[in-house]
């Protein structure tokens, strides 16, 4: 479903950061995520998780290697076909990104309207999706009347409204309390059981540890481990170059405070793209 072959992504130092620091992005990453997989993408901020997701969506194009999504090399897709690629991929964010002036039903319907679905198809399908995410009877609510967990459910409903084969989630529980997060994970799990490939970038160790799904850990743009039913922190000892053995921790020692004024940019953030 998703295949990375020796993918390297080097950001242009000048345009993004305005400093001499070359951002790592991704460094020679090769990985395959099969249809129907549920995989966690873990790693410190700046380890390349967002770059990974952006490459799948073809928001950016790899500087080296190739990214295949649903059998297509995304770099070879002409720009006018990119929307078609994105219709096959749903995306959920930490900050929900709902349209505040539209109610729950309209927010979900928006995704279908945008791709030209008929009114009757929207009328039929939206309630089903809302039921799947557990929001029956809340169609008429405005986003600001909903709790964080409910808002994220709306966002998930919107992401899967067009029946994508892949669902990307970028820290979907990052703004939610643990109990609510479990509810969201149950929704994602249900979606995965319906056959959708789910790839979730997260810092939430409780969730990763309890779900026992595939875990891919990135550090400074490289894949550090890839476990079938892993935990947030690796149990496999790592042999360092000097021969010492230690339990490597996902968040240990890799996180660096970004230099002032050059904050690691928010993933998919279109909010700041405009001048």
């Amino acid at each position: 479903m998703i295949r990375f072959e020796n993918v390297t992504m080097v950001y242009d130092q000048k345009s993004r950061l305005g400093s001499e620091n070359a951002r790592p992005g991704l460094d020679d990453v090769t990985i395959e995520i099969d249809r129907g997989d549920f995989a966690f993408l873990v790693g410190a901020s700046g380890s390349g998780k967002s770059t990974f997701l952006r490459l799948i969506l073809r928001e950016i194009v790899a500087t080296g290697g190739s990214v295949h999504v649903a059998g297509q090399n995304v770099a070879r897709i002409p720009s006018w076909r990119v929307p078609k690629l994105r219709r096959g991929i749903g995306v959920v964010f930490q900050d929900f990104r709902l349209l505040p002036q539209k109610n729950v039903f309209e927010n979900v319907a928006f995704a279908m309207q945008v791709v030209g679905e008929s009114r009757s198809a929207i009328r039929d399908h939206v309630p089903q999706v809302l039921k799947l995410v557990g929001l029956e009877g809340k169609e008429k609510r405005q986003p600001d009347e909903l709790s964080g967990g409910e808002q994220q459910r709306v966002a998930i409903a919107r992401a899967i409204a067009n029946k994508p084969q892949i669902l990307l989630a970028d820290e979907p529980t990052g703004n939610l309390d643990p109990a609510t997060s479990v509810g969201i994970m149950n929704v994602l799990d249900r979606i995965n059981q319906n056959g959708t490939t789910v790839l979730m970038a997260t810092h939430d160790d409780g969730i990763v540890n309890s779900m026992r799904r595939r875990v891919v850990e990135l550090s400074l743009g490289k894949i550090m481990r890839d476990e079938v039913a892993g935990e947030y922190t690796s149990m496999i000892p790592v042999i360092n170059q000097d021969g010492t053995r230690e339990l490597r921790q996902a968040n240990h020692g890799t996180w660096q405070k970004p230099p002032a004024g050059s904050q690691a940019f928010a993933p998919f953030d279109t909010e700041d793209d405009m001048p």
Partner: protein
Amino acid sequence: MKLGFILGEVGTGLRRNLSMVVSVVLVTFISLTFVGTAALMQMQITQMKGYWYDKVQVAIYLCGEHNESSNCTEGAVTEGQRGEIESMLGSSAVKPYVDNFEYESKEQALAHFQEQFENSSMSETVTAEQLPESFRVSLVDPEKYQIIKELFSSTDGVDVVVDQRELLEKIFSIINIASFVAIGIAGVMILCAVLLVGTTIRLSAYLRRRETGIMRLVGASKSSLQLPFVLEGIIAALVGALLASGVLWAAVRFLVDEKLAIEYKDTAFISTGEVLIVAPWLILLGVVLAGVSSLVTLRRYLKV
């Protein structure tokens, strides 16, 4: 992408960005009014040329009692001189250039004068003696006026040869200058309009970045992302163009048709019919300018 959905988006955009949209409407309105004015002035010139060039003649004024021209040193023109000029006009050297000619006596000149200035007090004080007698010559080709002038200027008994077209050309050059000024102002205003449409679309895209961000992610095509914005610009420009057309129509209707044309009955004026020819072009110009400038802006500020 359904039409209804796109129009809904356009409506949202126009509402949220109302003050900018109003300014686009006004700037387009003013600039297209100037463009239209210039076009109508040019049409007026064409109209007058067609009307007058058939009627204007070369006037060969003959010497009167008190003329000081070098040909008139011997006082008023004599019978013999007049006959000679008449036979010259009929001679084979001149005939090919002359369509027809007629003699206008002092009395006839007075009659014409009184007709022309019937509302003026001048017509009562002027007497036939004060007006020159003349030959009125219509040329086959009015541009060949110089030949007649050269032939008759030095003939005895001729005071002066006047091409009446010269008088008209003065009027035309004034109208021409006015229409160039209008074109100049229109040019600056159109530049303003184009820049303003660009800024407005940019602001509109910024105000709706949340929507467009989501639209991108769920796979909106380029056209469905951009069309609402382009339509926004085009609708604003269209309203401006319609206002400009309306104002031009009203100006011609109430100032030209109902005033100038009544006061100066013997002049051909443009009428609202000409406005109806100009208006579609103004609308097209407005729509094309707005469409192009919004597309160019979106290429830069609304990536797919």
